[in-house]
């Protein structure tokens, strides 16, 4: 235990930095889970595939559109980043809408029991994962040849950005990528907060989350609200996908969404499911807990630590830290 505390103290600021960046990414994915749960009370298990698609679009944009092989600087870099970020967000958002349209709405219209939504989500998730496995240029879907994008093996993503230290705080170097992650995440969370609290659509989302039936009687178009919720969640996951690849520098593959997906769902539950601010708090908290557990127990114990913390928090506060906000 003493070793644990002293090692955390020694690496405190380094791990805080790592935890904040990872936590911001978790928070962005967790928003998709928590908002969908708020309006539909559905664990959108296919959300990890929404994230995965964004990492694949990142790969495609950097490697095939912009032909990035060496890091670039200046305005070119900004063009490349924005030119990749927008397709990522669009692809993920549209995929989330398609999921709602084809995997959830037919069930909703039939008044299916809740567990069948979960199974449908799992089916959709498998479908999408293996669709990308098939995308190696040798497989066909009916008569259409699938493009050569991903395939069964991990594909390294070229990075358009060279890592450099922007500033040093308490002896910890903060790189430009991490600054970018935090800036983009904060910006998007800020915009989301405005959308949800200030706009008409945001009011619709909140009203459906509170009481769908009454909302529909007051003239809220439930279907449109649900589609918008999925789209917003998809956009956030899309941005998170690009940032995840950029800051961790990992290759993308068809199963990449799984771990961030369950971590983000854990974060959403930790903060109080259905609660948007709770998801952000839960994401950051989970990122920090994982980061601090690295010097303490070792990198292979992070998942266990995260889930143990989840169970402990739920035992004390059964509806998450900030409490849940879902339709009664």
């Amino acid at each position, binding site marked *: 235990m003493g070793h644990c505390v002293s090692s955390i103290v020694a690496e405190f600021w380094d791990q805080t930095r790592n935890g904040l960046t990872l936590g911001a990414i978790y928070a962005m994915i967790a928003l998709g889970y928590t908002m969908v749960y708020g309006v539909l009370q559905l664990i959108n298990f296919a959300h990890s595939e929404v994230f995965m698609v964004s990492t694949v679009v990142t790969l495609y944009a950097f490697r095939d559109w912009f032909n990035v092989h060496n890091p670039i600087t200046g305005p070119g870099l900004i063009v490349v980043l924005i030119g990749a970020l927008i397709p990522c967000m669009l692809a993920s958002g549209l995929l989330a809408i398609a999921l709602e349209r084809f995997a959830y709405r037919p069930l909703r219209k039939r008044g299916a029991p809740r567990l069948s939504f979960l199974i449908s989500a*799992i089916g959709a998730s498998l479908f999408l994962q293996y669709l990308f496995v*098939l995308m190696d240029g040798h497989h066909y879907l009916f008569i259409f040849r699938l493009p050569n994008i991903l395939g069964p093996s991990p594909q390294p993503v070229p990075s358009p950005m060279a890592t450099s230290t922007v500033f040093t705080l308490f002896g910890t170097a903060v790189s430009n990528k991490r600054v970018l992650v935090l800036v983009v995440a904060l910006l998007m969370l800020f915009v989301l907060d405005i959308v949800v609290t200030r706009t008409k659509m945001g009011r619709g989302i909140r009203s459906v989350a509170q009481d769908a*039936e009454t909302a529909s009687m007051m003239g809220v178009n439930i279907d449109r609200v649900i589609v918008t919720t999925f789209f917003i969640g998809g956009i956030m996951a899309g941005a998170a996908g690009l940032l995840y690849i950029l800051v961790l520098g990992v290759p993308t593959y068809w199963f990449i969404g799984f771990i961030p997906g369950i971590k983000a769902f*854990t974060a959403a539950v930790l903060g109080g499911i259905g609660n948007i601010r709770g998801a952000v708090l839960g994401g950051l908290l989970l990122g920090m807990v994982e980061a601090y557990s690295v010097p303490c127990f070792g990198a292979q114990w992070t*998942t*266990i630590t995260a889930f143990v913390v989840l169970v402990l928090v739920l035992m004390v506060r059964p509806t998450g830290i900030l409490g849940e906000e879902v339709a009664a």
Partner: protein
Amino acid sequence: MSEEGPNQEQEPTEVSVRQTTPRAQPNRWTLMRRDWRDRRLAFLDLRKATYRAAGATVRGWFQPVRQVAQPPRDWIKERRRWTYPLLGALLVIAVGALPYLGTYYVIPLWLQRITDASVLARVALFSLFALGLNVVVGFAGLLDLGYVAFWALGSYTAAILTGARTYSLALQGGNTHVTAPVWNEWMWLIFPAALVVAVIAGIVLGSPTLRLRVDYLAIVTLGFGEIVRELANNMDSFTGGPRGITSIPHPAIQGFGLDIVWGTFLDIKYYWLLLVLVVFWVIAIRLLDDSRIGRAWVAIREDEVAAASMGVPIVRMKLAAFAIGACTGGVGGAVYALQVPFINPPTFALIQSILILSCVVIGGMGSIRGAIFGAAAIVLLPELFRGFLDYRFFVFGAAIVIVMIFRPQGIFPSKRRTAELLGAQHDDQLYDAARAGGSTT
């Protein structure tokens, strides 16, 4: 519970007056069976449950509902008591002989694929797991996404107790003078041991978490599954770590004039062993479902508050469901470890929990034949698509979505659940709102 049973049954005056034609009195077993049937029927009446929850006295739960004279029963119904077990036994024998279909008849390739002994053994294994998870998800209504943890615990218990772990660790340490463990008579005790370990794990997981709502329970159980897998991965000296445990001995029965030795993975006897377990479990779960505990589960699933107010011990009943599900997983896991004599952490990935849950939901929650059908579908469909090897999980995913869209209640929905779904309002108002016209606004 003032209106419960015996006091009122001791007033037979009215009944005897109304019986004009003397008939042979049904014997006590028949009466008892009718009585239970009536109680079951009464239980379906949710309206009464609502009145009861509101504090009103409703006759008919704990006493026979019908007091009018019954019409003479069809003789076929009387015979059912014998025909059902007989037909069941014939069915089990026929299913057990399936792997021999290809040896005696010329059958197409796809049929050969799905009547392979190892494939059928997997169907039986998944049936066993689906039966166990069905108790948790279908009967008690608790969502468990970490069922694979109990499978893993059963498998690792078997692997450690048979001495295969010690052997594997020695091999990994470079010691080549060790001999692989062989089957011993006492090793049959690993089955009860695996059962006990899984039940303890189920109770340890369940007691702090069963107070949580269903979706929270889902993530906690998912986390439990991941924790067990990661522990198996990280605790190298206890579980063999990521390199796993090899050379788990195959079982054998020698002595008592018998000489049955289970062979490798492909041995048809594993299929039979699992089939025996499945039959045993089907009977046991069938009886449980019809028992007091089964009715308590239904009550908890439908309305926890009402059930608690009627004196159903909520946490204890939920724990019972969890423990029964867990012990099934543990026993199945032990058989699995003996069959494939090699286990490692990736064997117990989350996808296995999800597949087992899919068996239960696709078959129809709360339905025993549904669980078995679902297991067959989940295991056999990818086998059927093996010709399109690269496409099979792709097609499988789409098939799951399509089944859920067209039969959201599952292929063989349980009668009790269907009645509840038709009779009761949904808890989730959105689905009602959407059906009632939310889509048109």
